[in-house]
């Protein structure tokens, strides 16, 4: 039976819960089932230690040690023809194992194959930048630093990419609230007006379901408008005509009886 739900203010709450959701497992194949991937893996195994490897959704996934990343990427680019780094980012597993997972998504144009390199790092650990191997890693590593606070060593210009430079916190961490922390909530007020203006402007009103026609500071009923902050009166307001009284000089008013209707184009 479904749990009882209060029907009042349904829109204010999240109606969705993932109580019964279980992510469907993605089938993994052995690497030996694909000849090209098997050769690639053999080459990589001769260079560095491979912790795990499998084929998932027609992609080879290779899990390595963090210290070997530059070696692996250089080999993948120069020897194995994986010449395109399409994505690089991290996943937050801090709650589960106090670790980040870093992944690199590669594409080989000549082999028509995709490959993913992964490794785990602990929370305070820095990674090695690969921007000297793949140019596209430049902004991707900056974004990763911006969103997770993961520092890439040897990056030439590691600063925030999306958020403002003086932003506090790393928004893609799972511990970061969607509606923002204290610094995020007051960011624009603090920056433009200063902290003393917080009381004047007030907190963010995020409840868009609230309507109060008597509150003339925040609402104005259409055709019942009153000046800002004055008492609401139920009387309709009269704005008068769009044109000035008696019309504008030199412009004659359109009269219906003087008009002529055409049944077809001239």
């Amino acid at each position, binding site marked *: 039976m479904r749990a009882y739900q209060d029907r009042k203010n349904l829109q204010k709450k999240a109606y969705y819960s993932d109580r019964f959701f279980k992510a469907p497992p993605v089938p993994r194949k052995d690497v030996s089932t694909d000849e090209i991937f098997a050769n690639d893996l053999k080459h990589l195994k001769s260079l560095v230690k491979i912790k795990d490897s499998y084929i998932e959704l027609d992609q080879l996934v290779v899990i390595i040690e963090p210290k070997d990343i530059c070696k692996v990427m250089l080999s993948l680019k120069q020897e194995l023809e994986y010449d395109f780094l399409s994505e690089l980012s991290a996943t937050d597993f801090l709650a589960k194992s106090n670790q980040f997972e870093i992944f690199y998504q590669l594409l080989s144009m000549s082999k028509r194959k995709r490959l993913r390199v992964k490794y785990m790092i602990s929370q305070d650990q820095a990674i090695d930048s690969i921007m000297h191997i793949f140019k596209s890693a430049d902004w991707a590593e900056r974004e990763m630093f911006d969103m997770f606070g993961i520092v890439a060593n040897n990056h030439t210009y590691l600063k925030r990419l999306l958020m403002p430079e003086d932003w506090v916190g790393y*928004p893609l961490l799972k511990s970061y609230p969607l509606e923002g922390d204290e610094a995020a909530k007051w960011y*624009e007020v603090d920056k433009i007006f200063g902290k003393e203006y917080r009381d004047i402007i007030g907190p963010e*009103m*995020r409840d*868009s379901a609230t309507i109060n026609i008597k509150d003339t500071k925040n609402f104005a009923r259409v055709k019942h408008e009153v000046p800002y902050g004055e008492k609401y009166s139920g009387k309709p307001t009269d*704005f008068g005509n769009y044109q000035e009284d008696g019309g504008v000089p030199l412009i004659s008013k359109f009269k219906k009886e003087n008009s002529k209707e055409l049944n077809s184009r001239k």
Partner: protein
Amino acid sequence: MAQHKVNYLQDAGLPVALTTVDKLVQWGRSNSLWALTYGLACCAIEMMASGASRYDFDRFGTIFRASPRQADLMVVAGTLTKKHAEFIKRLYDQMTEPKWVISMGSCANTGGMFNTYATVQGVDRVIPVDIYLPGCAPRPETLQYAVMMLQKQIRRESAFQKLKPKRLV
């Protein structure tokens, strides 16, 4: 030299119209609302459509300008992010008085569906707003109506008042 004589009593009367300075000035102002191009998101597409030939803002005297120094109307069309908030304030301050603001669309009004850490929950947290235009995105005729309402509002105002201290200013 050509000699001509106008018979004022017979033709259209004396070429004189009586009015007040307030009305004359505000008539001019309301019919030459030059708008700052301020497209921040998808509402900008509707704003551009309002300016283009089908809806044609030019016949209201509303011409889009790319400089705040030449503009007296700001149409905030789209989502204002917190990173951008300081720039909208700076551009608003650079506009010459008298100046008006139309907040176009749900995002500019209240943050809209972007109930997140990175979105300003309504531009009125940063600059004072004269007309809030609901919709996601509002159609061009809605923006046109908002401009007409603003013109009406301007014509009712006195010409020489200082900009009334609205919220935050």
